[in-house]
């Protein structure tokens, strides 16, 4: 079955990512040093009781007495059951850290994607319905402009304009309720959404223009259906394929972008967590985040596959 095959493929991707990350921690330098820092190599006599306990726990958590592959296998088994170990640098369970940080980032990403989709679809439809005319040509210029600005520059610009200069949006992430969450994350989400909007607009516009040449569009028009109906009810759905594909693939880039954005706006998400973890050399946390991010990527792309069948009944998941 197709869907099972895809799931198996995706599981392989996750496996490869975890393997590489785990290998990096274990084979680049001494794993114990990677996990614990200098105490790993210090003279045991100089260590406190706690530090010695850490040493033993780290050896156990990462199965450092086993051969590499066994070590990987057992660690993977723990991950699957949700046991990500513990950060030895700031003494919290990694799973707790993830549980705190992940929802914020997922919220931000979903927010950005929603903004991107909600803006790009009507924009692309509008441009395609006036293909090669002024509106469409100027749309192209604008969207290329949006694609050209790097995320960090966008972040700085929007932050300065809307937070510092006009003080429309709050300076800090505010998590008191959904409204304040949405409001305080608006500029960060827009920063992430802008290149997405442009990408989606480009892709969808091109696909729409070719769909609009199809006979069934002429048939719908000959039936007297309104322009709106023809565009949104007939042309849109068969034109969403490229956009949907990129939607899935873009998840990776979006996570990259949210590292920048979270850092700049001090949003306590996974992007910021990974930076913090890297700065304090906190390998277990970095490792867990890498794994989680790859799982998110894979899950979204499987969802995209399932969505294909919704978009086009000719695509059979079991075919």
């Amino acid at each position, binding site marked *: 079955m197709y869907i099972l095959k895809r799931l198996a493929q995706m599981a392989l991707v996750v496996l490869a990512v975890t393997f590489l990350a785990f290998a990096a921690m274990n084979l680049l330098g001494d794993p114990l040093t990677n996990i614990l820092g200098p105490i790993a190599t210090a003279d045991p006599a100089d260590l406190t009781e706690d530090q010695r306990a850490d040493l033993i726990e780290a050896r156990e958590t990462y199965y450092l007495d086993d051969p590499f592959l066994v070590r990987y296998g057992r660690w993977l088994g723990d991950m699957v059951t949700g046991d990500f170990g513990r950060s030895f640098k700031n003494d919290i369970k990694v799973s707790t850290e993830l549980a705190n940080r992940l929802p914020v980032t997922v919220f931000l990403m979903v927010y950005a994607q929603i903004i991107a989709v909600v803006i790009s679809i009507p924009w692309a439809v509008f441009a395609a319905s006036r293909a090669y005319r002024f509106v469409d040509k100027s749309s192209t210029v604008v969207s290329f402009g949006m694609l050209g600005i790097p995320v960090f520059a966008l972040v700085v610009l929007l932050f300065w304009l809307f937070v510092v200069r006009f003080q429309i949006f709050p300076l800090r992430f505010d998590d008191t309720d959904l409204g304040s969450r949405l409001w305080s994350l608006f500029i960060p989400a827009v920063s992430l959404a802008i290149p997405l909007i442009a990408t989606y607009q480009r892709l969808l516009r091109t696909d729409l223009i070719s769909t609009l040449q199809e006979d069934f569009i002429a048939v719908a028009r000959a039936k007297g*259906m309104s322009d709106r109906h023809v565009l949104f009810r007939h042309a849109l759905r068969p034109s969403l394929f490229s956009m949907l594909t990129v939607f899935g693939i873009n998840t990776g880039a979006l996570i990259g972008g949210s590292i920048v954005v979270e850092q700049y706006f001090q949003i306590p998400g996974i992007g910021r967590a990974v930076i913090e973890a890297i700065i304090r050399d906190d390998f277990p946390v970095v490792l867990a985040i890498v794994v989680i991010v790859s799982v998110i990527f894979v899950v979204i792309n499987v969802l995209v596959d399932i969505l294909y069948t919704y978009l086009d009944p000719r695509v059979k998941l079991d075919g």
Partner: protein
Amino acid sequence: MAPLLELDDVSVTFNTPKGPVYAVNNVNLSVERGQALGIVGESGSGKSVTMKTVMGLLPRTATIGGSVTYDGLDVFDLPSDRRKHFYGVDVAMIFQNPMTSLNPVKRISAQLTEGMKYHDGLSSSAADDKALELLELVRIPDPKKRMKQYPHELSGGMRQRVVIAMALANDPSLLIADEPTTALDVTVQRDILDLLDQLKAERDMAMILITHDLGVVKDRTDEIAVMYGGRLMEAATTGEVFADTAHPYTEALQRSIPDMTMERGTRLTPIEGSPPDLSIKPTGCPFAPRCGYATPECSTAIPDRMPVPGSTTHVFACHHPRGSAGAVQEVNA
């Protein structure tokens, strides 16, 4: 009473990056209520473009001249309330390729009912009932099942039946069928044509049947218009076209009528040469280079359209007509 649909001196020019394409030139056509008009001509003669002009389906690159009137109303300048009901309700069109005429991502039921809901404001269930009736009317096997299916689950013949049902959804007074069987298997072709004939008769609907095959319209239409190179070559009642052919092009088309029993792809006597390049404005008769009767005059003067003496329905555009028009010309000379 004015004809149901009348095209007067219609011209269409496409402005392409390579220059203008003179796709339709000074075409006059008319269809009476309840009657059938056949438009015949080889591929590239401007038949589809002419009909797209009526249906408002031409791209923005097209410059349109002349006028189209429906029931005495200027089609290019319909009052907005009438406009909404013109396409789909007054006039419906069936296209050449049933494989591409249906939206691949919408169920048959949705495609059949959307026009009824939009134009007649039918409720979903009323529209579904009517759609089912239409599918029965076009004799689709197992209509209930078809409603829930997607186009790719249907054969070409069934799809064309769905397209026909869709065109009938709002009881049009005029049905334009643009080569409705060209893309279908020979065995299905006759069935579909017979179905169209029958529907036309039952519903007292006018029909324009477009084809490249004169044989198709022979027994099915009241009048025939022959087009070539974007021009009207000959127009007459169906009887006159066959009994007293005036134009050499019509004559050539008659010789190339394929037999219904022949395999698809084989031809009888095809007309030598190929249709003209419409990006070049002709200086004479567009058929002259392929015409056995052509004289130097034919490539220097575009023949006017004139009536066959003694007939009020028969017109042709040729310097050297055949049949009775030719005989009269010889007597006068």
